[in-house]
């Protein structure tokens, strides 16, 4: 980020930084899924050919 206003301005470096800021790489995806809470899991004794038993997951990749 261009934040430091007191730094000596080096044009070439700044130009490269500007290009970088214009075209940042795509951020990594964050996949965090809904957690199950309460007795719902116990009630759903069998999920026949239906969603597999949800696994608690906080996957930050």
């Amino acid at each position, binding site marked *: 980020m261009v934040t430091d206003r007191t730094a000596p301005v080096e044009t070439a470096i700044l130009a490269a930084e500007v290009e970088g800021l214009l075209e940042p790489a795509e951020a990594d*995806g964050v*996949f965090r*899924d*809904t957690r199950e809470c309460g007795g719902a899991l116990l*009630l*759903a*004794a*069998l*999920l*026949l*050919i*239906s*969603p*597999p*038993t*949800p696994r608690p997951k906080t*996957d930050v*990749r």
Partner: protein
Amino acid sequence: MTGGHGDPGLLDHMVEASLGWLDGARGSFRLPPDVTTDADPNLTLKPLGELAELSQLIGAVHPREEIRRTARGLFAFAWNETRDGELFAELIRGEPFATYPVELYGVFARAGLRHAEADELVRTTTRLRGWRVAREDHTRTLGVLNAERRIGLRQHADFASVLALTGLGRLPEPWALDRKAAYGITHDVFHLTDWGRDRQRLSPELAGYLRLWLPSWLENWLEEQLWDLVGELLAVTACLPKAPYDPVAWQRLAGAQAADGSVPEMGAAPGSGDPDEMFTACYHSTLVTAFAATLARIAADEAEAGPRGGDPVLVGGRTPGESESAP
């Protein structure tokens, strides 16, 4: 997602490899002696029911004879494990108000495999007012309704009205979807189309919705490497009219399939080598892969040949002599 006619060579190889692994895993599908009492149904009846559902379909509709033969062998094995349906009579006697024995029995009843006592029991239990009490999961209710239809029972609720309440019927914002909702949508489609046999039941509105948003969901869950959901989304894609074929997604799912034909549920297969752990981690995704590749293969054939609207295999659901394949 692009058009195109698919890659029959790749698809058939994936089905063959999957079925090969499943065939070798018969021991793990075998039901334990305490299956109707203490065993965890999620680790016993659920895998066998899925094996039956999908091997029946593949055995009926796959264009390749040797693949059909292997699939029919697995379906016959599953029926044999139920002791020619005796299992269902026992399950219903033990848990008369549970839906799962009915759902499971429907898989076999659809193929003409009946058990007289189970038939009488379900006629009684599904007539009760209590059977018609709304269940908390509408997608699951669709499965129950489909089972009733397969067995020839009166459906306890109106299919279209229940569908309208589901994650598919509501046409939710496609970005507001968690994993459970995604599995819900795939299963709404499977129950509605009778697992891809009756694809014209998908209304133009629902098909249009799915055609628009499936590519995004596929991309997301490919990135997460949740292979069973990827397979299910590809199966749903193959249920669309003029089904699109996404070569990249198929290549990536093929890449997740191990040399032995197994497909892990997520990421890479467990490295422990423990057979039970391997089975639990892989059986579902492997089945789904075989199922999805079969539907995609049929869709590719149709794209090649033009629509085969009146195909009895797909509409009527039975091939001649199919029931003879069971012992």
